[in-house]
């Protein structure tokens, strides 16, 4: 526990330093990011140690002055897994932030950024290690607020404000309406806020409570994780946040939703089969719709945000199979499902962080994230292109990188579930396999589009000039890229790490988890063998190619110079003749138009000598425009009806004044309007008067009610002492 406490202390020091060194922002940036790097590496090493030794740490307990809960930190397998992910990604993002933010050091409040960065990281660590409900909620809220301020870094821009507000509102709706009632139910059941007492609080016979808790957890934690249709804040907040923040948001902040959901699952006995099936459907919908929306995007970061939604769907598939395996009493399927989901959590953090950093480097270099204006960046920023390619191959789940490994395990668990007949006698896992395959194919389409249009070909907008990627960014990306490759090529080293967490989730004893993991370890080691075969094949072919070229050079065959791409008879091919991102994805978007509902605005060329024409395509998010916007508009209309007086103290909105013209305004109405108007005008004497009046009213009620209290005094007092006794 000491490393965690040390890193928390370091982050506190970092936050204060960033506020102290406000005058020298560049120095503050370097120092604070160094502190953040050290803190995250400490935390990651500690977590790795816990996983390797397969032993939990803690609990570490300190009393605090709040009336409810204590500071209780403990690291079990689940916490350690997420802690390791947070540590590794935060370390790389810290290295990345230095060159990214130092360009903006004079103009933007970089020290505020550093302070909130430290706060975000500290709240993430507390959240993941918390073993107490109140501490968990405090960490949750601190993380939300810190992330809000980080997302709103460029708050002068309107779309940034909108994205930040959407994030805040979405998270708070999820927390207030679903997460808090969840914890309230658990607190009411057990009487304490300690997580250790939550485990086993609800029996497996109590089906209603189990399903309610599952639904609350899915809605509340699912809003944070970005399951459809609660994902609407993701594509709004990710593109407008600074790149290090986007990487952290996508990499770890949405994973805390997954962590909360998994923590809930670890307290509950095996849930009814229908819960796993619902989660499977949620995963399928999130995955397929997420990648379809990603296909239709024009902005690089928004595309990556929708891919986060898709990958959360894949993680949900893994968790759902784990739940189905638990419900059907098949520990092999359960362990594999949870293991695949957890591995995908880390893999996604790694390759999504890499992709966001690469997109940030593109933004930094070219000034725009609009895919259709970029092109040919592979020749100007070759290292960045290689990094994006590694991230793209990893996110499509292609061997030999890490995305394939976690998807392979999830496929294995789904196929196992189908063979054993779990979930609509095996049909639902079969459908999930087809959906996962479709997601993989569509992701391939999307990333060939993104990589091909941004980095390959010719630049589509000649007015953009490209700057080189700074070395710090390259180093951070290279670390993540290397880890993607290593995890993919050497899966045998990584799979045993997940067995502690998977065993805890599947409620399976340690020895049996070992045995189940062994069954997937042997084929995984064969995967390394296949990677070796692949590398041998590639090098063999390259060697043959070199040999052929050498032989041609020796026999003096004339070497033709490189020429422009053949334009099939056009004498002057231009860069504008290339396929744009929209045209590349058009076939797929049209095929799936009944799911996407794309919009087209076209001013077609007309006449024999047509002038300028215009085509605009959009794929507006159905959940945002057709589900949530009408709900919020309805709420807004409700509030407008309640509002009686406008800001300047004038009498009423148009509706009210209409009725005022027709009917007589009686004395009560005039009095109420006058009071509300006086409150809005904000004179301090009126407000003091209102406070006094409210206090008088309260004392009056207190004075009246002891008459009732005295009759039942004995009963109430003993109740009171009983509660006090339980607390101590």
């Amino acid at each position, binding site marked *: 526990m000491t490393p965690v406490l040390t890193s928390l202390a370091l982050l506190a020091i970092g936050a204060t330093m960033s506020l102290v060194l406000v005058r020298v922002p560049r120095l503050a940036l370097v120092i604070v990011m160094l502190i953040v790097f050290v803190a995250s590496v400490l935390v990651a090493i500690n977590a790795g140690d816990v996983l390797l030794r397969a032993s939990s740490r803690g609990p570490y307990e300190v009393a605090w002055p709040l009336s409810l809960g204590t500071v209780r930190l403990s690291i079990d397998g689940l916490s350690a897994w997420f802690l390791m992910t947070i540590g590794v990604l935060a370390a790389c993002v810290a290295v990345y932030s230095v060159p990214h933010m130092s360009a903006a050091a004079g103009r933007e409040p970089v020290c505020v950024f550093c302070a909130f960065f430290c706060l975000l990281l500290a709240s993430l660590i507390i959240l993941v290690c918390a073993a107490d409900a109140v501490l968990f909620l405090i960490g949750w809220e601190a993380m939300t607020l810190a992330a809000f301020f980080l997302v709103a870094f460029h708050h002068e821009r309107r779309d940034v404000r909108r994205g930040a507000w959407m994030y805040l509102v979405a998270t708070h709706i999820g927390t207030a309406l679903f997460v808090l009632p969840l914890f309230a139910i658990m607190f009411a059941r057990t009487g304490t806020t300690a997580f250790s007492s939550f485990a086993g609080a609800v029996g497996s016979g109590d089906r209603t409570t189990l399903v309610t808790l599952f639904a609350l957890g899915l809605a509340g934690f699912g809003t944070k994780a970005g399951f459809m249709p609660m994902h609407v804040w993701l594509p709004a907040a990710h593109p407008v946040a600074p790149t290090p923040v986007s990487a952290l948001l996508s990499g770890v902040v949405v994973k805390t939703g997954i962590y909360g959901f998994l923590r809930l699952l670890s307290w509950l006995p095996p849930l009814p089969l229908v819960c796993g099936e619902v989660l499977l459907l949620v995963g399928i919908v999130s995955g397929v719709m997420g990648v379809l929306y990603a296909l239709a995007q024009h902005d690089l970061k928004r595309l990556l945000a929708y891919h986060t939604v898709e990958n959360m769907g894949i993680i949900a598939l893994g968790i759902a199979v784990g739940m189905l395996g638990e419900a059907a009493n098949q520990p092999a399927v359960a362990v594999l499902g949870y293991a695949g989901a957890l591995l995908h959590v880390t893999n996604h953090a790694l390759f999504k962080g890499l992709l966001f950093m690469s997109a940030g480097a593109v933004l930094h270099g070219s000034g725009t994230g609009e895919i259709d204006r970029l*092109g*040919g960046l*592979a*020749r100007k920023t070759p290292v960045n292109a290689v990094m994006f*390619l590694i991230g793209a*191959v990893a996110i*499509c789940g*292609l*061997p030999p990188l890490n995305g394939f490994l976690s998807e*392979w395990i999830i*496929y*294995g668990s789904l196929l196992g579930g*189908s*063979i054993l*007949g779990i979930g609509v*006698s*095996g*049909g639902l896992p*079969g459908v999930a*396999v*087809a959906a996962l*395959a*479709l997601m*993989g*194919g569509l992701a*391939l*389409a999307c*990333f*060939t*589009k993104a990589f*091909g249009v941004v980095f*390959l070909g010719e630049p589509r907008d000649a007015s953009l000039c490209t700057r080189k990627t700074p070395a710090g960014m390259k180093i951070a990306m290279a670390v993540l890229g290397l880890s993607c490759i290593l995890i993919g090529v050497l899966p045998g080293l990584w799979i045993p790490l997940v067995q502690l967490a998977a065993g805890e989730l599947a409620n399976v004893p340690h020895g049996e988890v070992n045995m189940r993991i062994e069954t997937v370890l*042997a*084929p995984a080691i*064969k995967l390394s*063998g*296949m990677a070796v*075969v*692949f590398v041998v*094949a*590639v090098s063999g*072919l390259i060697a043959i190619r070199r040999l052929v*070229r050498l032989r041609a050079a020796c026999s003096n065959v*004339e070497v*033709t110079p*490189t020429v*422009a*791409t*053949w*334009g*099939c008879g056009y004498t002057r*091919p231009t*860069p504008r*003749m*290339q*396929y744009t991102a929209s*045209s590349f*994805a058009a*076939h*797929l978007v049209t095929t799936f138009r009944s799911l996407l509902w794309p919009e087209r605005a076209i001013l077609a060329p007309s006449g024999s000598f047509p002038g300028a024409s215009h085509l605009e395509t959009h794929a507006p998010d159905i959940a945002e425009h057709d589900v949530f916007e009408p709900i919020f508009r309805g709420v807004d209309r409700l509030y407008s009806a309640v509002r009686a007086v406008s800001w300047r103290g004038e009498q009423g909105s148009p509706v009210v004044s209409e009725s005022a013209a027709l009917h007589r305004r009686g004395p009560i109405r005039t009095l109420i309007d006058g009071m509300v108007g006086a409150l809005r005008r904000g004179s301090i004497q009126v407000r003091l008067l209102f406070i006094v009046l409210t206090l008088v009213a309260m004392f009056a009620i207190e004075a009246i009610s002891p008459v009732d209290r005295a009759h039942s005094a004995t009963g109430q007092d003993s109740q009171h002492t009983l509660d006090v006794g339980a607390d101590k």
Partner: protein
Amino acid sequence: MTVLRAILFVPEVLVVLASPPLLMSVIAKTKAWFGGRVGPPWLQPYFDIHKLIQKNAVYSKTTTWIFRAGPIISLASLLTATTLVPVLSDDSLLGFPGDVILLAYLLALGRMFTVLAAMDTGSSFEGMGASREVTFGAMSEPALFLSFVVMAVASKSLRLSEMIGPSLIPGWQVAGPAVILVVGALLVVLLTETCRVPVDDPATHLELTMIHEVMVLDHSGPEFACITYGAALKFALLGSIVVHAAIPHGGWLAWLNAPLRMLELGGLALLIGIIESVTARFRLNRVPMLLAGATVLSAIALVLVLMRRTV
């Protein structure tokens, strides 16, 4: 691995790697026969590859290292996939549980790099081919994977050589109609992945009708030899899966099994040649419907196999 297997390892690998262009000439000869022609010589594909290796490659200024790496990586992924598919015998060279997923994703890796090499040229032709290829590739994946699910449930194994091996004989007896539907779906996937009529016409070079041909329009010389051979190898691999699923042998002796499998692969090539000669190419809007139809076939097969198991 028995002693016989170890002895036959090297000749088997050599035959498997050398025979795919022969399958291409079977298709060409069939189409020629339908057209009343004699057709090219039987060894023409080998002559073509030999000619291409000796030619010089012309590169475009727009291309980067990805253009040169694309054909190499796609051929390497196909060679890696060859170790997973049982072609001449009932056992693959390097199989393991879950290798069927690796096979499908290796093919996807090849597709990704072919598409990226096409986008690298900055030409609208290659972009068009790339766009069509990723569309049809994405839509054929569910059909392929649903077929895998059906075969996995029927054979209770996750190893490709066990899914389509002798253990499928009881599977045929128990769930015959399901396996027929799966073979039909796999045939459609074969036509899509190897870009045959009715999805794509490999003989034409008109931009309205090409998918695979237009993606590799700019490749020349040894890279194009890689691509031509790779296409033939892909046909041999996917064809082997179809043939093994359709006609399961009973674990016979190697000297009987291997020639029989070669004949069956030749028969499949003949069938593809017949399909190419009697069908016209579908309009591009209709191809997603064909692929959705294949997915539905696999889904019906899945329902049959699951019902059979519970009943």
